[in-house]
C-alpha cells in the first residue's frame, strides 16, 4: 500500500508510454502512427518533469520585492522551498523541437499520400511490390 501511494504516478506514465509504443508498432495508418509518436514523446516528457516535483515546494520563480536591486544578500533563498527547475529547462526545449519534428513527419505523410493516394501502410506496401 505504501508503495502504491508513492509510485502510482510512475505506473500511469508507463501506461501512457506503452499506449504510444503500441500505436507506433500496430496501427496501420500513418497519421495514427504519428499520433502514437507524439503520445510517446509527451509521456517521456511527463516522466522527466515529474522527477523535478518536490512536496511542499513552490514554483521555481524566486520571490522578490520591488526595487531592491539584485536581491543579493537581502534574503536567503532555500533550495527546499523551490521545485527543481533543471528537468523543466530540458523538457521546455524538447516540446518546441517536438512540434518542428511533427511538422516534418506530417509533411512526409502528405508526400506519401500524393504519391500513393492512401495513408494505409499495407496498401502502400502492396503498391510498392507491384512495381
Amino acid at each position, binding site marked *: 500500500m505504501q508503495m502504491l501511494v508513492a509510485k502510482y504516478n510512475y505506473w500511469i506514465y508507463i501506461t501512457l508510454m506503452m499506449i504510444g509504443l503500441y500505436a507506433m508498432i500496430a496501427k496501420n*495508418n500513418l497519421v*495514427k502512427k504519428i499520433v502514437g509518436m507524439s503520445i510517446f514523446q509527451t509521456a517521456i516528457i511527463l516522466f522527466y518533469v515529474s522527477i523535478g516535483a518536490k512536496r511542499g*515546494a513552490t514554483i521555481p520563480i524566486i520571490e522578490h520585492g520591488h526595487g531592491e536591486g539584485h536581491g543579493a544578500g537581502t534574503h536567503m533563498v532555500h533550495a527546499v522551498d523551490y521545485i527543481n527547475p533543471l528537468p523543466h529547462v530540458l523538457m521546455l526545449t524538447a516540446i518546441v523541437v517536438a512540434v518542428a519534428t511533427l511538422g516534418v513527419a506530417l509533411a512526409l505523410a502528405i508526400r506519401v499520400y500524393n504519391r500513393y493516394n492512401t495513408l494505409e501502410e499495407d496498401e502502400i506496401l502492396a503498391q510498392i511490390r507491384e512495381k
Partner: protein
Amino acid sequence: MIWQLDLAILTLVVIAGIGAITVKDLLGAAILFGAYSFMMCLLWSIMGAVDVSFTEASVGAGASTVFFVAAVFRTTRRTKD
C-alpha cells in the same frame, strides 16, 4: 498538490490517449490529441512546472492540433483502424 485532482486528470489523460489511437476518424483523432495535450498541460501545472505547461498549452494544444488538422485536410479522413 491535490492528489484527487491529480488522479482524475491522469485518468482523463489515459482515456484521451486511448481514444486518440482507436477512433476511426483522423479528424477525431486530431481533436482528441488536442484534448490529451491540454490535460497534460494541466498535469504539469499541478506539478508546479509552470513554464513547461505554458509551452505545452501554446505548442501542444495549439500549434500541433492545427498541424494535424491541416495534414488531415490535405490527405484523407478515412482510416481502417
